[in-house]
């Protein structure tokens, strides 16, 4: 019995070692950003991204691409999330696989945080320069202080080439052109090496002699003072004064070498330029909205009134970056990510042109696996069970109108 127990113990130990070794050698790349885990109401009722465009799907190292589009800061911003008074336009990528060569809101460079207004639409662009080869999920993203990262739609982009060829040239205001990728690195290593050398010399001076047992005996027997000799004190003085001299001299030399330096720049940018969408002539009232859990479909009863002078049809419902289209009205030609596009996901009980001055109540169904895949169905577990989104109408001339909807959502389980 003991032999069997010993064998089991030994085999268990071997299995543990094998498992640990296997885990060390297999570490898959984490490419995405947990966007599906973000609470559905955060994605549906905060920042609505639309008209997104990723300029390239494959880009060599050192080449650039852009993500551009618009975002609506939703007027019905949830109470449980801080308002976007301090926000930062970011990109969701796994580390610096690209560098952010530029980012603009309304044409203004935004290297700093910005203040956004509820209910406004902003146009944005992010310029990315490829740095590290691989397949990367590239998202638009808005960080909101007190709200966290609000991640937008993502698309896979491939970077080709070699990272060793990456360069990041920058010209300073003192006229020097440097490669920011490795600028001043030798200087960092040099000064750290110098101070490590001095510190090790100080440590070696002491630890080369007998340490713990004899010194403890001496201290315990009242002979502590004999452990520090006059010579030790002189050496100590040398290290102390030497340290002060090196610090002072190196600082002075640095100031001579870099006479022009400025403090770090920080601050909040206010008054960002908004984007004026064409004024909507269509008004929409949500009579009720239900989410049918087994059918992965959201159904809305909408009363739509056309106050314009041209007949309109509903072509798209966009929520949390998922686009439900009625192909009879609108088809996507922007190479929007497949998993976020339900090309035939929108059905309207009567989607014949709504004449000017006409009011009609219709049943609108947005159905697609994306509800489940993107965990938007989890909305029913949120603390404030409301949905929101963008409705896009097209008139006879092809003009588009944007109308927002925001209403309670009732789940149905049968």
């Amino acid at each position, binding site marked *: 019995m003991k032999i069997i127990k010993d064998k089991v113990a030994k085999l268990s130990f071997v299995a543990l070692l094998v498992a640990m070794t296997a885990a060390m050698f297999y570490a898959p790349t984490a490419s995405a*950003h947990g966007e599906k885990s973000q609470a559905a109401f955060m994605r549906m009722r905060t920042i609505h991204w639309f008209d997104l465009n990723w300029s390239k799907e494959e880009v060599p190292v050192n080449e650039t691409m852009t993500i551009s589009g618009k975002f609506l800061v939703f007027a019905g911003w949830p109470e449980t999330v801080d308002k976007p008074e*301090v926000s*930062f336009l*970011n*990109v969701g*990528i796994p*580390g*610096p*696989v690209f560098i*952010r*060569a530029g980012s603009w809101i309304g044409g203004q*460079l935004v*290297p700093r*945080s910005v203040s956004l207004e509820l209910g406004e639409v902003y146009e944005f662009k992010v310029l990315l320069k490829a740095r*590290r080869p691989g397949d990367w999920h590239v998202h638009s993203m808005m*960080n909101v202080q007190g709200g966290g*990262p609000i991640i937008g739609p993502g698309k896979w982009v491939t970077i080709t080439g070699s990272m060793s060829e990456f360069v*990041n040239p920058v*010209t*300073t*205001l003192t006229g*020097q052109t440097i490669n*920011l990728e490795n*600028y001043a*690195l030798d*200087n*960092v290593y040099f*000064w*750290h090496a110098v*101070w*490590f050398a*001095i*510190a*090790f010399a100080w*440590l070696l001076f*002491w630890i080369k002699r*007998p*340490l*713990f*047992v*004899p*010194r403890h005996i001496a*201290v315990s027997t009242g002979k502590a003072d004999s*452990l520090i000799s006059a010579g030790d004190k002189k050496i*100590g003085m040398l290290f102390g004064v030497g*340290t002060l001299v*090196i610090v*002072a001299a*190196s600082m002075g*030399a*640095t*100031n001579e*070498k*870099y006479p022009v*330096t400025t*403090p*770090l*720049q*920080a601050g*909040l940018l206010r008054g960002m330029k908004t984007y004026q969408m064409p004024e909507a002539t269509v008004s929409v009232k949500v009579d009720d909205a239900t989410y049918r859990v087994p059918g992965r479909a959201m159904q809305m009863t909408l009363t739509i009134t056309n106050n314009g002078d041209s007949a309109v049809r509903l072509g798209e419902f966009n929520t949390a970056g998922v686009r439900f289209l009625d192909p009879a009205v609108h088809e996507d030609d922007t190479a929007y990510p497949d998993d976020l596009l339900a090309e035939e996901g929108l059905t309207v009980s009567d989607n014949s042109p709504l004449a000017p001055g006409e009011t009609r109540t219709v049943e609108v169904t947005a159905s697609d696996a994306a509800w489940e895949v993107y965990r938007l169905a989890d909305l029913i577990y949120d603390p404030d069970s409301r949905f929101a989104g963008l409705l896009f109408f097209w008139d006879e001339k092809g003009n588009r109108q944007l109308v927002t909807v925001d209403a309670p959502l009732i789940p149905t389980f049968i």
Partner: protein
Amino acid sequence: MSASQSAVRSRAEAVQVSRTFDWMILFTLFTAVLGGYHIHYMLTGGDWDFWTDWKDRRLWVTVAPIVSITFPAAVQACLWWRYRLPVGATLSVVALMIGEWINRYMNFWGWTYFPVNICFPSNLLPGAIVLDVILMLGNSMTLTAVVGGLAYGLLFYPGNWPVIAPLHVPVEYNGMMMTLADLQGYHYVRTGTPEYIRMVEKGTLRTFGKDVAPVSAFFSGFVSIIIYFLWHFFGRWFAKTDFIADDAS
């Protein structure tokens, strides 16, 4: 061999065993301090130490010495009062900075590809050496706390300036002026560290014009004195041997 007999048979063997014991204790102490101090400093100093665009003349100068004088004070208390070894501060900071360099090189660069010139650690060594020297020369906790603690705070910024000055050279970028360090933070995307999280250049030291670093350093030195006292007592308490029978200490 009875319990009363010695484990060694000659003086030479005793010296050899003692040295072996020295190295074992030193290795254990070094790695334990490396781990504990590193976690402490990452939790309290964190981003100020991680990124060049956090290394400003107000908060970095203030925070880094205050939160880093802790372990040096505690280890000094143990090594000085028990063994008369004036290496507690230097040993702690060397351990911390070795741990930090391993972290920055293996993780920040090797794993997530941030260039080392944006994520190198702060240099704490000049202050640590001076702290040890003052304790050795003065043999006084009070003197070390007051003079050493103040010096530790004051030496931090000039001790780091040769490393960070090149990154404070200004650049014009798409119509805005920023330092190269700011540009590093902007270029090398940190998804989880948005710009507004940066705590730099905040405060009310506006009456000192551009010369706020010395004021921040003095303030940091004063608080470091208090923290030194506190952690020195932690170290003395931690180095007690009450758990050993018949030990009076």
